[in-house]
């Protein structure tokens, strides 16, 4: 199971390396099992959330939490462990969001599963939407907020699925607000989040084409 899973993962990663969109983000995540980690993390988390949200005089738009910096790790080897050795493959995958409970090196795509306290988000590997830095960071900061919100929940596929669904709903909201658009040159253009239509905002979702 582990060998086939790792080989399929490597196939995805080489396909994703063709385009320039390496959109990964690593995150610290607290397991409910290890109580010691939880204590340390909670202090740092409270600091960052307090800093971000309390200096608003007129809160028209909530300032998004910045994603925490990731220390790059060198020499990360794929350590896929089969179930016999106690490793677990926890992931939640949908079309635009893939979340893994592992550390995935952004350059070499080595997946290190021993570090299960991190979640890795792979955003839109098939490039159904057009992404730029602003929208990417929006999604990352939303992911950060979600992870902070879900802190203390058991690390199961169920919670990863909940997080993934929340991110998908957020992407859909961005689409309806006009901040991201469908990529018309995608290989599979099937408008999976709703056909483009004229909405009350000025920006449209796809090519407007109304005369």
């Amino acid at each position, binding site marked *: 199971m582990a060998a086939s899973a790792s080989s399929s993962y490597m196939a995805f990663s080489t396909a994703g390396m063709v385009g320039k969109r390496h959109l990964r983000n690593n995150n610290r995540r607290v397991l409910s099992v290890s109580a010691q980690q939880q204590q340390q993390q909670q202090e740092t988390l409270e600091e960052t959330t307090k800093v971000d949200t309390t200096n608003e005089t007129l809160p028209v738009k909530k300032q998004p939490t910045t994603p925490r910096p990731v220390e790059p790790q060198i020499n990360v080897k794929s350590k896929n462990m089969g179930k016999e050795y106690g490793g677990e493959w926890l992931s939640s995958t*949908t079309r635009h969001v893939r979340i893994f409970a592992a550390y995935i090196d952004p350059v070499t795509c080595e997946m290190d599963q021993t570090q299960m306290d991190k979640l890795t988000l792979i955003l839109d590997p098939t490039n159904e939407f057009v992404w730029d830095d602003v929208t990417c960071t929006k999604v990352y900061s939303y992911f950060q907020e979600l992870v902070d919100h879900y802190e203390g929940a*058991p690390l*199961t596929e169920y919670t990863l*699925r909940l997080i993934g*669904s929340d991110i*998908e709903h957020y992407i859909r909201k961005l689409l309806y607000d006009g901040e991201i658009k469908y990529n018309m040159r995608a290989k599979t253009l099937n408008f*999976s989040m709703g056909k483009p239509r004229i909405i009350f905002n000025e920006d449209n979702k796809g090519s407007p084409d109304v005369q």
Partner: protein
Amino acid sequence: STAVILYVYGYNYLRSQCAYDVAPGGLLASVYHLTRIEYGIDQPEEVCIKVFAPRKKPRIPSVFWVWKSADFQERESYDMLGISYDKHPRLKRILMPESWIGWPLRKDYIAPNFYEIQDAH
């Protein structure tokens, strides 16, 4: 209720075991459908037993040791409604993924808002 289950052991065939939710906020019922299989009988006699369990801590003794066919059926009742069967050898989720939270077929179950892959417009 537990004594009744042992009492009807004259019936050697558990046709099916199912469970259902009586009312939202009410009891949970576990149903056993038993017949007697003998040689050369056209219309075997049947008995249907319902066991009601409270919603807070639904625990019913397992009939696995009496009729082996209750194995997967009781696991399904556990998975869908949360009725835990005592002394069942492998009582774990059988239809939903193992880490699922909640009992789907209860009347007060709310499915979380998971993302569907494609909107059908």
